[in-house]
């Protein structure tokens, strides 16, 4: 049998220590991604450290007036947390647009950051994949890539990060709190995940000995004008083809501050600060949104099956910004239906 040892960490320091031990060591939180990957033989850890007992389940005020989300708070508890719903409804919406209630009950905030790509080939050991087996080649570039990336792709990998939650976190300029052997550090959300380059085996910048302890949301208020728009192949229980997290601060019809991040397009949640700059001080009109949308997809590259995403991304950005402006987070009764 695919043998592995299983231990339970009772303290963060112990978890970090054990993580640096030899062998292929993995933390397990909700297990909703890791166990699937183990069954498919994509991940074959020799040691599992269960971190569910760590005291990281709280959602509490952060020192700077923001909100701190414990790494082990579940996605469900986070989405339905009264503070999150009130102050960061964009995040609630994004979480609820993902997976299913059963999965969200198990999935943790920390685990959500680490979920791996849904690229078909990554899951199928019969096909080459640079992310799974560096140097073996990328099957998707010349293969079926309908669900894969159009921005920040490389010649080695065009995978996307599949998370919904992370798209909202990117738009909200969250930070990730990480503890390692050398103590704690804080990582800006856009620096947490990475682009594939020629090392697509690395999804993020976490070091082997580190653990995520919390995600901090800044105090800024985007609770009135926001939208999480997720486009997918069925109404629920499907990953995003394109998703857009849009958040605005408006003064009359003038945009004081605008945030924009996309899911389903890149190896990381795609926040575009250059495009955001085009929102600042502009009227919240179709014209502005069109310019911003064009900016976001400026460097986009299609690979055949997924080329439609470039146009779809533009339209989705415009719609999400319009909805955010109108204070109407979802477009119609069918979108983001969250059973």
């Amino acid at each position, binding site marked *: 049998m*695919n043998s592995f040892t299983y231990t339970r960490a009772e303290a963060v320091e112990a978890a970090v220590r054990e993580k640096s031990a030899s062998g292929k060591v993995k933390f397990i939180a909700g297990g909703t991604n890791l166990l699937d990957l183990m069954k498919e033989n994509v991940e074959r850890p020799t040691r599992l450290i269960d971190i569910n007992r760590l005291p990281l389940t709280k959602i509490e005020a952060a020192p700077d007036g923001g909100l701190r989300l414990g790494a082990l708070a579940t996605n469900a508890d986070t989405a339905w947390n009264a503070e999150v719903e009130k102050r960061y409804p964009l995040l609630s919406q994004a979480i609820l647009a993902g997976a299913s209630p059963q999965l969200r009950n198990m999935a943790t905030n920390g685990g959500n950051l680490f979920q791996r790509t849904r690229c078909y*080939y990554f899951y199928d050991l019969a096909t080459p994949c640079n992310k799974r087996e560096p140097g073996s080649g990328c099957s998707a570039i010349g*293969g079926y890539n309908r669900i894969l990336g159009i921005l920040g792709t490389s010649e080695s990998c065009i995978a996307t990060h599949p998370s919904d939650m992370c798209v909202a976190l990117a738009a909200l300029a969250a930070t990730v709190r990480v503890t390692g052997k050398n103590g704690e550090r804080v990582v800006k959300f856009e620096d947490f995940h990475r682009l594939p380059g020629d090392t697509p085996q690395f999804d993020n910048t976490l070091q082997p000995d580190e653990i995520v302890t919390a995600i901090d949301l800044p105090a800024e208020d985007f609770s009135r004008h926001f939208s999480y728009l997720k486009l997918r192949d069925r109404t629920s229980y499907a990953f995003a083809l394109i998703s857009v997290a849009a958040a605005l601060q408006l003064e009359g019809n003038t945009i004081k501050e605008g945030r924009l991040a996309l899911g389903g397009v890149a190896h990381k949640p795609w926040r575009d600060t250059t495009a955001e700059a085009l929102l600042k001080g502009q009227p919240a009109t179709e014209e502005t949104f069109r310019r911003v949308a064009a900016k976001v997809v400026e460097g986009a590259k299609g690979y055949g099956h997924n080329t*439609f995403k470039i146009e*779809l991304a533009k339209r989705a950005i415009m719609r999400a910004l319009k909805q955010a402006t109108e204070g109407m987070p979802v477009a*119609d009764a*069918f979108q983001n239906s969250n*059973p």
Partner: protein
Amino acid sequence: MSNTNYIGKALSRVDGPAKVTGAAKYAAEFNVPGLVYGYVVSSPVAKGKITKIDAAEVLALPGVLQVFSHENVPMLALLDRSYKDDVAPGGSPFRPLHDAEIKFSQQPVALVVADTFELARYAASVLKIEYETVAHETDLETKRGEGFEPGTGKTGFVPPPPPRGNPDKEFENAVHRIDQEYVHGTQHHNPMEMFGTTAEYLDGGKLNVYDKTQGALNSQRYIRQIFGLSKDDARVISKYTGGGFGSGLRPQYQLFMAVLAALELKKSVRVSLTRQQMFSFGHRPHTLQTVKLGTNADGSLAALHHHALHETSRFEDYTENVVNWSGMLYQCDNVKLGYQLAKLDVYTPQDMRAPGAATGLFALEVAMDEMAYAAGLDPLEFRLRNYADRDQNLDKPFSSKKLRECYHEGAAKFGWEERNPAPRSMRQGNMLVGYGMATGVWDASQQKAGAKVSLSADGKLTVQSATNEIGTGTYTIMTQVAAEYLGLPLEAVDFQLGDTDFPAAPVQGGSWTAASVGTAVKNACEALGEKLLKLAQQMEGSPLKDAKFEDVEFVNGQLRLRLDPGQAVVVRDIVQASGETKVEADATAMPNLIKQKQYSLHAHNAVFVEVQIDEELGTLHVTRVVNAVAAGRIMNPKTARSQVLGSVVWGLSMALMEETVMDHQFGRYVNHNYAEYHIPVCADIHDIDVLFVEEEDDIVNPLGVKGIGEVGMLGVAAAITNAVYHATGKRIRELPIMIDKLL
């Protein structure tokens, strides 16, 4: 049979409680003592051969019992014939673990057997197998113009009739013409329950085989032929099937594997497939179709051409009736139908819910919509103008056909007359609204089937037949039939199925089970009834002494005179008085071919749908469906409605989601799991209204049923496609209709 107690009543499933409490056991849930586990190793390559299998390392793992492959499989049956099951198409069936040749990606190449499932799975993952590959062909698009006409190897396959009239000339002369291509990709059945077999090894080397199948007898014949077993050596049991949709019509390779391992190791063995492996066998084939229609100035069809080309494997010629429907659904004197196959390096396709019709009617019914627009007619009106009162393929009248009523009642219920025919003319908020409709037709068939009934002295009736329950309601319907004919309460009837020791019945498919097994149960009950009358007449002071069978009836647990119900005997007392512990009878029911031969026997339906589309974002919702079905007598409106609801979801799924995508680089399906092979979730399903237009038909079979398991899905995919056109002005001719096609 107008006054019934049970038949025609909306009753809940008799097997419902067992299913929701978990008491219902499926093939891979029989935990027989000493069970060991097999795990199948699947080929990563599409074509070539195995050059080396190195099992030494795996065999050295404690707990691994054996690795079966072509290298060590014992001598089995030699002839192709022995590997043919009841629904095998023409050709040479795939033989698992037969030789080194790889014929398709995911071909099973080895079975690892171990003490635990986890160990077997692990061992399978590290088993070293080397392959030599050769170039494969998996793309049907490259086979255009290279099709061939298949032989009639497969039961139920009817080659298209020869052309009638002057189809080419009349098409050229027609006032309005359309000529288009329609495509859908490969689809896999994906029943919830994965294929699994538990082969229980009994003293003396006999086997009890718990198999996931749509035909226990089919499975039994298959393993008997291959392994040279007698009927007594291998009993096949299949009490519940977690969905089939045609995938269980042929024995799948895990059955072979489990039996092989059990016989060789002399142990009880279970082999169950993974979800990924559920994509390693039969499927609805990728099909390319062309339809040409021509109409006269009055909207009557002047000419109809329909041609289909679909994939099959290198080794078998899978066939289904794709184009024939086009020659009988509408009145048209000039018809040309063509049907061809192309061989690819894939597994043989397999019947999948409404095989052939689901494909052919999608093309025909979209073409009919296109033609209605070309001719400036309402799509419903266009169909009514070309209504066929006679089956022109067979040149026979229909035994019954209430399709016209389906059109009218369906349209009324749906509100079709509110439709503004112009595309893009209807809106709701910022959504475009489209109304579309289409027609369905399916065979009403009956097969030979047997049943046995046994009434015990405590008044309990046991009914047995080797048919299967695939979730369609067979347990319930047969219980109703028996209770009806012997006047017993439902609770007194125990209908048993899925056991090769029971009287023979055909595989559960083709929507023929209610007709076939239902008639057998009825006949058996009547035979028992006659016996009971004779016994009743021997009772002291019997009030039925001089009665003939026609004079009596079974009602409320009594046998009584029709004209003088006071003259009665309690049925239970008859058994008791007979001195026996039970009274038994059996019967076989055959279709009355002499009567049926003069008619065309079909069920029909008309489907109306509303879609709402956000054009900018390409999102689509099927907000309303009305499905009006004429399928003879409805035995149980509740189970029948369930069948049609499920069918509508199937049709919607085919229209909007389902496609197994082949990566031709590898000749391998890429989305072979439930996360990426999409079927609808609850949030995709809105209002579905099912309407039955009952038909009285004593020609199809004595019960007057036509079967309801398949017809309901027909028309759905086309109606949705047509509604999309009405909403957006975009004519889509390739399924599934996903976001990218709507942008």
